[in-house]
């Protein structure tokens, strides 16, 4: 059981370190969004699971708030990445050397483009 806790904690920390390496190295904003959504989520989930098992095994307390936090991060990370990438595309953030296709620009405008409300 000790080794299971150690595996979860070290694994989660290494995943977070991988995410930071990705955010520093990758050349483009959309790629950094990939690293944030996938690696940070898994890293924090593993750390929370390790902490939950630690409190259960060593102290005898069952603390399900940690699992709730992990579930919350799993739910909300894709949503924030979707909103950020949509806002970045609308604000003309330049993508990296876009070799293949840009279907969004081909369809000429972002969907649900309502009019700007009047300023007071």
């Amino acid at each position, binding site marked *: 059981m000790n080794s299971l806790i150690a595996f979860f904690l070290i694994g989660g920390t290494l*995943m977070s370190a*991988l995410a930071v*390496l*990705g955010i520093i*190295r*990758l*050349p*483009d904003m*959309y*790629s950094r*969004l*990939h*690293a944030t*959504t*996938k*690696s940070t*989520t*898994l890293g924090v989930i593993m750390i929370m699971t390790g902490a939950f098992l630690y409190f259960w095994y060593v102290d005898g307390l069952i603390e399900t708030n940690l699992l709730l936090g992990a579930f919350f991060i799993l*739910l909300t*990370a*894709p*949503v924030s*990445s*979707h909103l950020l*990438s*949509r806002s970045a*595309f609308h604000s003309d953030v330049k*993508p*990296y050397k*876009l*070799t*293949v*296709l*840009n*279907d*969004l*620009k081909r*369809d000429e405008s*972002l*969907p*649900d483009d309502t009019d700007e409300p009047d300023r007071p």
Partner: protein
Amino acid sequence: MALQILINITLAFIWVLIVSDLSLGSLFAGYLIGIIPVFVLRRFLPGRFYMVRVYYSIKLIAVFTIELIKANYELSKIIISPKIDIHPGFFAYPCDLEEEWEITLLSGLISLTPGTVIVAISDDYSTIYIHGLNALDVDAEISLIKNRFEKLIAEVSKP
């Protein structure tokens, strides 16, 4: 499906009354035993047998977890290598699902898949625009999403 679950819960309570043992364990045992009459009489109740939907939901959760782990493995291979060669691209994916919660599930699943992040959804929910890290073979990605994920979500949502 709601009617089947209601009948199952009623049978669980009747089981507690039969066994005369008012505890949570006998309620749970009554629920498990009550699945059998619902299964035998599934022809006379509306909709599919609801355990099939429960099985597909559990399979969806397993697919979520496996895709997250695979995504991290692929991303680590890209980040650690000394020269980053990615060929990103935006591509459009035609989607056949109707309801809103299905599209939400599908977009969450696409965001946790190796190499794809969702960018925009069109107004009539018919096209999903995706940013991929390796957009060299677009058709493989589109067929993967269509065949694995959309079929699974359609199975969960069929009444």
